[in-house]
């Protein structure tokens, strides 16, 4: 086993993708689609321009594998922003240090109110987020927030600045069971360019965050690349390899991949490359065929029409009733007009549930038992 995913990245970093694409033919892709042992090169073939020509076959195989592994079930969650202070200058982000926006960090009372509101809608799986400021939202503060949440939700995930293994362990001990951390861009040079300053500039520390969390015992990890920064075929390739690496190294964990496309935000950042809907479909279906058991997450960054049609192609998790603003659910702070990025699918949980049912999917809100969960657990005298 490689020391970390960075070693795997370095193995492929200098690969001439153009030459590889030139040597891929239709027969090879069809053979890959029929195989149940797909190599990294096979995965790249699925993502190649030649693979795009066979997108319908790719979609059928992806659908079949999704049905077999996950059935007619979609997991639902919602994000809750705790703070938008940030020490990083990331070119593409609405919360970056330089942006003149209203900043806020929820008080614990606001966390209580906001989370009561979210739980009241029926959510069981919550994703809490902060900006990249360890000063404005220190680990201790996040732990206190988790204590407020853990009686109300059966699964708590965090999407925060990178932590050490010991810090992840502290969060797990408080009741956190999931981590979302995107590499944003696997291309190391572009990473360096768009992460202008701040602690996030450390590419390898960011890249190894999922491994640190998993070795601390994290149950689920969701990774991803922000589509629009690097060459999307390469980026999807590295995201898939990263997920595969984590699955191999931590087989007990649930690994999932997000496919976020850059959305407009306040600083007006223009993506370096455009990922079309067709490109997004190719990424999702290639990921599913390469990693039949991985989760694939689709957020409200995409519009309702597209989300509904992407469902059968491999999606297993969706967000609903989302807001990317601090206190955005109850509109309790002054920063409520400052969003991290624009969301496109504004549908509430009930509307998403109805859409799923109409399409023949069971919306699943609860899929874990948080052992901190309420008095019921206490009565069982856990040894």
């Amino acid at each position, binding site marked *: 086993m490689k020391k970390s995913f960075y070693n795997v990245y370095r193995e492929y970093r200098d690969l001439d993708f153009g030459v590889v694409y030139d040597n891929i033919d239709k027969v090879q892709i069809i053979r890959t689609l029929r195989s149940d042992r797909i190599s990294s090169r096979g995965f790249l073939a699925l993502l190649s321009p030649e693979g795009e020509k066979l997108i319908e076959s790719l979609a059928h195989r992806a659908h079949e594998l999704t049905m077999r592994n996950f059935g007619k079930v979609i997991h639902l969650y919602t994000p809750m922003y705790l703070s938008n202070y940030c020490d990083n200058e990331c070119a593409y982000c609405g919360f970056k240090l330089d942006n003149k926006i209203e900043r806020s960090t929820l008080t614990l009372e606001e966390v209580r109110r906001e989370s009561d509101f979210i739980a009241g809608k029926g959510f069981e799986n919550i994703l809490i987020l902060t900006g990249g400021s360890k000063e404005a939202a220190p680990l201790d503060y996040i732990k206190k927030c988790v204590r407020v949440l853990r009686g109300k939700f059966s699964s708590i995930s965090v999407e925060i600045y990178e932590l050490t293994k010991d810090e992840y362990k502290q969060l797990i001990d408080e009741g956190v069971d999931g981590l979302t951390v995107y590499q944003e861009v696997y291309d190391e040079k572009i990473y360096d360019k768009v992460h202008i300053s701040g602690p996030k500039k450390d590419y390898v520390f960011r890249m190894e965050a999922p491994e640190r969390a998993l070795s601390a015992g994290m149950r689920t990890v969701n990774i991803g690349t922000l589509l629009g920064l690097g060459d999307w075929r390469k980026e999807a390739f590295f995201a898939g390899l990263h997920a595969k690496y984590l699955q191999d190294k931590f087989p*007990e964990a649930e690994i999932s991949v997000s496919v976020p496309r850059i959305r407009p935000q306040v600083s007006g950042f223009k993506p370096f490359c455009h990922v079309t809907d067709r490109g997004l479909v190719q990424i999702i279906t290639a990921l599913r065929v390469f990693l039949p058991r991985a989760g694939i997450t689709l957020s409200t960054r995409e519009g309702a029409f597209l989300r509904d049609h992407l469902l059968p192609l491999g999606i297993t998790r969706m967000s609903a009733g989302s807001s990317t603003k601090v206190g955005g659910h109850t509109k309790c702070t002054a920063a409520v007009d400052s969003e991290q990025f624009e969301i496109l699918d504004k549908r509430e949980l009930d509307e998403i549930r109805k859409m799923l049912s109409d399409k023949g999917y069971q919306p699943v*809100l609860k899929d874990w038992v948080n052992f901190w969960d309420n008095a*019921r657990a206490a009565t069982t005298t856990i040894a």
Partner: protein
Amino acid sequence: MDDILKIGGREIRNRFFVGTGKFARKGIIRDVLEASGAEVVTVALRRVDLDSKDENVLDYVPEGRILMTNTSGARNAEEAVRLARLSRAMGCGNWIKIEVIPDNKYLMPDNIETLKAVEILVKEGFTVLPYMTPDLVCALRMAAAGAAAVMPLGSAIGSNRGFRTEEIVRIMVKELDLPVIVDAGIGQPSEAARCMEIGCDAVLVNTALATAEDPVMIAGAFDLAVKAGRMAYLSGVEPAIEGAEASSPLTGFLRDQE
């Protein structure tokens, strides 16, 4: 024909067990149970939400069926034990199917951790049915620890690849003094029938039902197949003979001498 399967003090007449994951809607589970007459239903505790104001999967389990919660999501014995205790505390009864799966790629169970959980939960009075990779020696140890039945997999969960572990399960059926229930991988009614023909005590099916276009109809088909396989087993039907009889007799010389 009075053919009763006894597990944990309960008498079961229908040997087709049903899983409740992966269905397009929870409500269809009731129709599946009614169409098939299945008496034993397994539900993942991680999906049960008694506090929810909405429909709960348990609402669709008709009166009189045996609810067997499972510890899906547990990665080790400790988590399985916690889930089992929580299940009982939530009023889901005493039957627990132990699933300890530290492998998210193939969903292969950990027989060693499963055995540990069996040992603990039997002492706490649960009716324990461990899901396992077919392994006679481990199954004997589970039996010794007080498991109520063992549930070897037919092939990987959700794979619909059929009864691929037949050779090992056949030995388990022969050697174990407790019910053997094939669980996972059964994709076609004919495969369920095959399990029963070789003497398995019951078959549990989920994915094949949930992903069929008509889950209710296929549930009925599985019910019939399980019944047919069981009847064939009880009938003492001549098993298929491997290879043909030798054409030139090997003991002919005895007659020649006489």
